[in-house]
């Protein structure tokens, strides 16, 4: 695994990562006041049918047959 890829798997034990984690906690502060359901809605996007909000694989289902 190259350096960049192994770097992204680190779980932030370096001092600079701990600092970044605090910064992220602070930036996302408004999310921590939400109820679990409301937070989940925000993370997943409001419209489950909207392909623009559904990540990379929508419209990309594998074929059911390859013959």
């Amino acid at each position, binding site marked *: *695994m*190259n350096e*960049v*890829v*192994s*770097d*992204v*798997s*680190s*779980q*932030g034990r370096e001092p600079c*990562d701990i600092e*970044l*984690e605090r*910064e*992220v*906690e602070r*930036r*996302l502060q*408004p*999310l*921590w006041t939400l109820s*679990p*359901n409301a*937070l*989940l809605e*925000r*993370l*997943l*996007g409001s419209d*489950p049918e909207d*392909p*623009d*909000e*559904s*990540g*990379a*694989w*929508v*419209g*990309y*289902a*594998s*074929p*059911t*047959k*390859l*013959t």
Partner: protein
Amino acid sequence: MTDQSLFVEGVRATIQAVWREQRRPSTPVRDLGGEASPATLPDSLRVWVLDAAGHSVYLSLPLLACEAAGGDGGAAVPVAAAWHLFHAGAHLLDDVVDGAVPGLDRAQTLNATVALTFLAQLSLATLRQSRVPAERILDLITAFNATALAMSAGQASDLAWEDGAALDAYWSIAAAKSGAFFALACRAGAMLGVEPEAETVCYERFGAHFGMLLQVSDDLRAVWRPRGRGDLLTLGRTLPIVYARAMAPPETEARLRDLVPRVPDDAVALAEVQELLKDPKLLGEHALSVLHYVTVRAGIHYQKARAALRATSRRDVAQIGLLLLLDRVMPALAIHDGAGAAREATDGA
């Protein structure tokens, strides 16, 4: 070339062109009778790959990275086509391994994955027509092959996944699969630019964190908005479950261990898992709740991706496109400063 639809059409035309190669047997094969009835890949595979190119939200990553690094976007077309073919092969392999598409023949799928991998190499070879130096084409082929090896290693670890594996294993596998794959999209695009290797690494790093964020987002959806049986069959390897089991008190861990394998055939078990994971008190007072932990980890990858772009010395409008794609992965993270991020990318441009 900056128009998205023209770009996608270019990618599809490149795929069609390399696909025709496999229908044209070499002279010795023709002499053996291959011309009369040439063996071909299933047409359903070609149709699916071309259709998927039209739906792929992230196909423009190589284009944007290329333009951001000062390259000619036209040269990014064969690279994007190669990445898409590679992507399609990996996606098929994942689906057959996970049992996500029950009717899909395993042997046919594995064969298709091999074919798509080599079609990707042929697509990179078409860069000769864009006057990309042969040495650079070789560098690109090497980058694709190195990534394929990293992803295969990640897949091997994924296949060897043991029930209740550690959180470290989750992150290593995600990095080797999603991280490496999206790092390649951006690295390969940036390699067509005019900037030195240090800049290319910045785009590679952006792509790696982009891929990790996408994996976390995909895992959240697998638990709370599963798209099919494949998501449910692999639920035990998603971040919310892996984290919860790693941090939960023994009784809760045992409950999750019991519930998760039942989820594919038991809607009540799925509902209970979803409720448990949402409970802020599930893991006690000394651990972050599942949703809080997942959000923070996603936020860290989001911030690191942005930092990677900020570390580049060249400012280009294509960086806004990269940031907008990043914001799209998990919009909740971008709400507070999404517009600021775009401005930040072009400051000094």
